[in-house]
């Protein structure tokens, strides 16, 4: 078993490796309104299955599952450069919004992925692009410690129009001093009082 085949276990959610059998579910998620800020995906379930089957071993692609086994979203770590110590978290989508109300699914999934990136693989930086109009995600990433490192004008054609992309980056030290405490705080806030 490779590291990419391993389930990453949390308190509220687990990250389970994406499988071809997830094609129909993930195709459905990617066809919904909330996926409008992701790059265009497969046009059919069959193409989605082909896309999943074609993921290289160098990528970590996960389905976010609640601990009771219900799949609620997806998340990936790609572009891993072990020489320079960086990678890109992405393909982040909560497909079952009603199922995660009051549950820190997004935050714990991100915590598990960053733990993989910084603690298990030993990277020193994660970085990537977000659509400027995806305000929820940009706000989220900045709260989680990512810094805006640049802006690419008219970089994406999404939602029927060109829009800027924001380049965001997080260093391992910032992860430990800012991101991790905030993630733990949000996870703690979801525990019953």
């Amino acid at each position, binding site marked *: 078993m490779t590291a990419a085949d391993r389930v990453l276990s949390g308190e509220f959610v687990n990250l389970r490796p994406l499988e071809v059998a997830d094609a129909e579910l993930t195709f459905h998620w990617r066809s919904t*309104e*909330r996926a409008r800020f992701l790059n265009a995906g497969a046009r059919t379930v069959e193409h989605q299955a082909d896309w999943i089957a074609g993921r290289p071993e160098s990528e970590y692609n996960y389905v976010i599952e609640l601990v009771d086994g219900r799949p609620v979203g997806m998340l990936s770590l790609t572009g891993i450069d072990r020489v320079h110590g960086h990678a890109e978290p992405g393909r982040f989508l*909560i497909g079952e*919004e009603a199922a*995660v*109300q*009051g*549950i*820190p*699914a*997004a*935050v714990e999934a991100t915590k598990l992925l960053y733990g993989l990136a910084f603690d298990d693989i030993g990277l020193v930086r994660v970085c990537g692009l977000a659509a400027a109009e995806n*305000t*929820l*995600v940009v*706000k*989220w990433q*900045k*709260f*989680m410690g990512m810094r805006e490192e640049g802006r690419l004008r008219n970089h994406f054609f999404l939602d029927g129009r060109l829009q800027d992309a924001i380049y965001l980056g997080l260093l391992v030290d910032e992860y430990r001093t800012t991101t991790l*405490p*905030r993630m733990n*705080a*949000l996870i*703690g*806030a*979801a*525990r*019953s*009082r």
Partner: protein
Amino acid sequence: MLDRAAVQEIVLHALETLNDERAPEDQLVPGPQTRLFGADAELDSLALVSVIVDVEEAVSKASGRTVPLTDDRAMSQEVSPFSDVDALTSYVVKLLSEPA
């Protein structure tokens, strides 16, 4: 100094801002008892972060004070500041009532 009504207005406005990002069928109806996070809550963690960021910024702008809402102290409160609008309002008012 911000009074309780003004703080509650800031919290409610943060929830209304969130509605701009939500589908028509998922619109929140913000009120003092609106559950935020935890059991039977209305928000997921992305939405909660949006509310936290907006409230911290608005309170800071209106009062000139920094009110950290996700530090150890916030997490150690007997009643979570994020359980509902009332609890978050009370916690912010409590922070503002203390010496700067």
